[in-house]
């Protein structure tokens, strides 16, 4: 059996002194699209950030893409793509400037960055607009374009549908399916249970910092 993309064992991570993750166990296989469900404050965001190598592990152990989550956080980061609560954009740069910058940091070619922009409907009209002036949904799409340009093996998305209109949501879903088809593994935290549920191959419930496997089939609610 191939190595799991994500394996967390009794993971504890803190925000200040608060244990956002209180002993989470999670296993994600390659090609999975996993939906993280749970109430606000459950620790979904921290779990995603832990998988991204952004947050240190205080107790427990884990590997992401084979890299140790404690000792090899740098390596973990290089191979994941994150869409968090914030968009990771420079507010005073235009959409085009942002995407070009982020594409350049991963040596993406101009075709790849243009394709990413087209894909997410930010070419033409929005390309020269400073990000500061965009609506929340438009910012999200820009951030998504940057994420697509990264071609990461593991995608970590924190409420990606929030702020997007119906068309953009459909496009996002298509993008995710394409990415999964191309071999990426995806972990999504979302309150959009129906939409994300139909996308996901598996659902887990995050409650008070721990993970519980959901009933099989329950992701399709």
């Amino acid at each position, binding site marked *: 059996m191939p190595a799991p993309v994500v394996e967390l064992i009794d993971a504890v991570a803190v925000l200040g002194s608060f244990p956002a993750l209180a002993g989470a166990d999670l296993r994600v296989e390659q090609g999975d699209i996993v939906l993280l469900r749970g109430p606000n404050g459950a620790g979904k965001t921290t779990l995603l950030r832990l998988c*991204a190598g952004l947050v240190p592990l205080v107790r427990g152990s884990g590997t992401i893409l084979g890299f140790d989550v404690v000792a090899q956080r740098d390596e973990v980061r290089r191979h994941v793509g994150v869409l968090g609560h914030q968009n990771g954009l420079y507010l005073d740069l235009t959409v085009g400037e942002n995407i070009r910058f982020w594409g350049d940091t991963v040596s993406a070619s101009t075709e790849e960055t243009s394709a990413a922009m087209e894909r997410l409907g930010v070419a033409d009209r929005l390309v020269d607009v400073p990000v500061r002036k965009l609506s929340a949904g438009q910012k999200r799409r820009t951030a998504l374009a940057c994420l697509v340009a*990264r071609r990461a093996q593991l995608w970590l998305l924190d409420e990606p549908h929030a702020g997007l209109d119906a068309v953009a949501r459909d496009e996002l879903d298509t993008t995710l399916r394409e990415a999964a088809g191309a071999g990426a593994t995806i972990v999504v935290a979302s309150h959009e249970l129906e939409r994300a549920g139909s996308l996901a191959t598996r659902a887990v419930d995050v409650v008070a910092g721990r993970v519980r496997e959901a009933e099989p089939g329950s992701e399709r609610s």
Partner: protein
Amino acid sequence: MSVWRIARLVARKDLQIEWNSRVLINQVLPFAGVTMVIFAFALDSDAVLERVAPGLVWLATMFSMLVLVQRTFAIETDDGALDALRVAGVDPRAIFAGKAMGLAVQLLVVEVVLLLAAIVLYRQTVPAGGVVLLVTTLISATCGLAAVGTLYGGLAAGFRGRETLLPLLTLPAVAPVLIGATRAVEAALGTAGAVVSDGWPWVGLLVVFAVAFGVGGSLAFGPLIDE
């Protein structure tokens, strides 16, 4: 992707942001200018002002630098871009070098404007023989300031109380630059009987400082911005 190439990308990005938002031009330069004016109110003596002009230029530079450093890291934390840079696996040394270069360019602009202000407001003159010393001083001092500012700015970014932590860490650290750069500029301008040759030992100090913090900063930056 080489560290150097990414550093240039980051520097270009920072300068592009400045160009788009014009915070330096619209806010920092006027602030620097205002400081030069209010010094005159406080010191109330033409003779004193003429004598201490180089020092005032560097004081105003220090205060403007604090503002510039806060700004250069505010753009990173406003929308989580620094996190995104960390996730992108960008070498922290490249981020450090890039941001320091961007900061250095902006600082140079401020310093030139402050020098002009000193020439106008404090009746300074630049003798031809002092120009080389003056330019060398500006460049070497700026490199040192940019390195220290980027290092501590990165540390303080994202913490509450960063507005006060930054000056507390930065100002003692740049004391050697304040001392050296002022003396060197005094030598270049001939203030209080100083001659140009007096200035070069100070430039030596500034260069060593810049190298020490350039190297030390690039090594320390990674661990400091990491959670």
